[in-house]
């Protein structure tokens, strides 16, 4: 509980820090059409990068579920996937806003734009998959397998394919990977990344808690409904019909 508060306060401080830094941050680069639009990248880049991280965690938890069969791992896998999906969606939307300001078109079939959209489609199918099964064990097992399977496409969609064709992200990618950001600008970028990561983990943890609570409630309901008709009979055991 204490840890929870510590985390919350940390998050709040980070948020304030980012807001201040964001307001003070220098407007980077002459490459931008309108200097103010550069600031959206403090959000766009971290959510885009971290969505893969959450998808990875979802796949890892999926493997853990398939090995251990403990509902907790299913909750982790599911909530990480949801946060990853949300981040990928936010990356797409912020990217579209930026593209609209910068080039006058929101959707221009840029390589990364295409692939993140495919990623969204792949993970959107996960939610369809979860609705299709009758028992919880089945749902969780199949969803976990799909979370792993879906993640197999992530390296291709995030690292391989976008590099095989020209993209408007090339310059930006290189700038960040080789860390050529201005000092001030880079500092805000780091702070924003850290805050968004914390926010993601926080969302994920909250969702795990919620899923666990609803799972436990279902278990309780199941126990109650079961006790109505068979508790009186207690344990069912074989009886001997005749002596050998």
């Amino acid at each position: 509980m204490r840890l929870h508060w510590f985390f919350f306060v940390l998050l709040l401080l980070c948020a304030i820090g980012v807001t201040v830094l964001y307001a003070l941050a220098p407007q980077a680069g002459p490459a931008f059409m309108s200097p103010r639009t550069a600031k959206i990248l403090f959000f766009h880049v971290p959510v885009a990068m971290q969505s893969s991280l959450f998808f990875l965690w979802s796949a890892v938890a999926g493997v853990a579920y398939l090995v251990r069969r403990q509902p907790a791992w299913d909750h982790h896998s599911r909530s990480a996937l949801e946060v990853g999906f949300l981040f990928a969606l936010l990356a797409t939307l912020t990217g579209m806003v930026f593209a609209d300001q910068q080039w006058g078109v929101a959707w221009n079939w840029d390589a990364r734009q295409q692939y993140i959209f495919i990623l969204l489609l792949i993970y959107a199918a996960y939610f369809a998959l979860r609705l299709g099964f009758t028992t919880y064990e089945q749902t969780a097992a199949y969803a976990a397998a799909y979370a792993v399977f879906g993640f197999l496409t992530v390296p291709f969609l995030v690292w391989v394919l976008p590099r095989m064709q020209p993209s408007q992200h090339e310059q930006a990618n290189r700038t960040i990977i080789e860390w050529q950001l201005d000092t001030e600008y880079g500092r805000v970028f780091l702070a924003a990344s850290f805050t968004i990561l914390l926010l993601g983990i926080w969302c994920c943890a909250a969702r795990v808690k919620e899923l666990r609570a609803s799972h436990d409630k279902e278990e309780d309901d199941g126990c109650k409904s079961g006790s109505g008709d068979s508790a009186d009979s207690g344990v069912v055991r074989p009886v001997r019909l005749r002596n050998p």
Partner: protein
Amino acid sequence: MREALAVLKKEVISELRGKHGLYMAFLFSIVAAFALGMASSLERPPASIASVLVMVLLLFSSISSLSRTFVLEEEQGTGDLLRVLGDPVAVFVGKMLYNFCLLLLLGVIAVPALVLFSGLAVSDPLLLVVSLLFACGGLAAAVSFCGALASRSRSRAALSGVISTPVLLPWVWMGLNAFRAALGDVAAQPWASAVGLLGMALVFGSIGPMLYSAVWRR
């Protein structure tokens, strides 16, 4: 491996005797090839469009016919029989091989048909054949797994379409790139794309059986 071949043999015998599944698959591919040819009949499509036609043809052939192998088992109630016999890896690999053979056969018939109907010029036949082979491998591996996942759910047919289509999209670009070069257009690193198709086929083909064995008795 012998077990997987037994599953493949069972599929082949079963489908050859059943006839209608295979017949529908072939008919679908020919109809699709003809429809695409007709749509581009006004003028000979440039390589960039022609490669799209080839890829769309493969994509729809695979989605319409391949998920059937797993879905049919559950529909006719033989899924439990397979599970009782044990060995999920053999079942998955056998069915994946069957899907690969079927898709390759469809591709070998439908792609030349499309080339004929649309009057496409093949400038690099070797690249075309190799990328067709690898694309079929990748599509077969991914659709097999998606079909297997969807087969136990309540809305099998719809779900297998919904989950396999997006998973197949990463293949589309590599396939497009390779086919474009094979059909005479300038494309960046066409052989790298073909090898990329092979790489994805191998990744999905090797992870698929493992994941399938983890869920198959659920």
